[in-house]
């Protein structure tokens, strides 16, 4: 049965704890929302799960039918990443659209305040 080196366990535990604490603090300060916290936490939680439960990689590899167990881990991380990027892209486009709308409305408002048109 596969075991994990204690040094690796300690290193991963420190990284995961620091990272989770860091993202939790940012969420508390409202620099991230709860959804972002959940998604970003996976960057620490998934490797930690594979480190602390070494048999998990083999079990998932059998379930997904892949020869190299860590393909499963990287696949999960990439899936999380793509979901996150997709969400960011949607959010960015919405912000861009709102920004464009606000600039138009402000420009028209400024125009009407600066110079009340005799036209039409």
């Amino acid at each position: 049965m596969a075991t994990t080196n204690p040094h690796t366990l300690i290193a991963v535990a420190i990284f995961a704890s620091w990272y989770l604490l860091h993202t939790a603090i940012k969420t508390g300060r409202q620099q991230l929302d709860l959804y972002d916290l959940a998604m970003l936490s996976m960057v620490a939680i998934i490797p930690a799960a594979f480190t602390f439960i070494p048999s998990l990689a083999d079990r998932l590899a059998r379930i997904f039918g892949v020869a190299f167990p860590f393909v499963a881990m990287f696949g999960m991380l990439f899936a999380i990443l793509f979901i996150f990027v997709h969400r960011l892209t949607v959010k960015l486009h919405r912000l861009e659209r709102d920004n464009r709308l606000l600039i138009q409305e402000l420009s028209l408002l400024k125009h009407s305040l600066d110079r009340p048109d005799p036209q039409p």
Partner: protein
Amino acid sequence: LLDEIARQCPGDSTLVIDDGSSDGTYQVARGRSPTVRMLRNLGIGGAIQTGIKYAERNDFDFCVQIDGDGQHPPSEIAKLVQAYRDQPRSIIIGSRYLSDGGFNSTLPRRAGSAAIAGALGILFPQCQVSDPTSGMRLLDRAAIRLFSARYPHDYPEPISLAWALREGLSVGEVPVTMRARVHGQSSIIGWKPLAYMFRVLSYILLARFMRFYP
């Protein structure tokens, strides 16, 4: 240009959209005509839509958009208006390709325009136009209402045509004589024509087949 418009279209309302220019356009234009200065540069789609919103809020029956680079002679505006009076349509395009004289653009641009016109004609058979990329257009109330609510921000003319056709608006065309650009240069240079074609054709396809888009 504004003096020419004032001579050619006496009694009509003129609005200049200054999309964040840094060459003193605003100072010159505001002395002659109502001028909206965009607080940030939004690009052609955002600027045109601002003018359309102005037309909607001021209850205009129709509006004519022309470029500020001198390509569209104000003397041709009367042809658009006359075409609208003869046969009202929601959008009347001023086509440089139906006209015998004037500036006809470069061969690659004509080919690109023909490809877009062909795509529009196939996907929307009721629309048989020769110059879908023309920036000289007349819009009636229905088109003003539609484009005031949503308007493409990049390469807007052909994409907005597809959106209008999908909404059931009618499109017509009238020959106009255009001039070579007097000021500035086209934004579609370098590799951009390829991006332009890809983007425009994709949006036209989406407009035809995706009912929920945009």
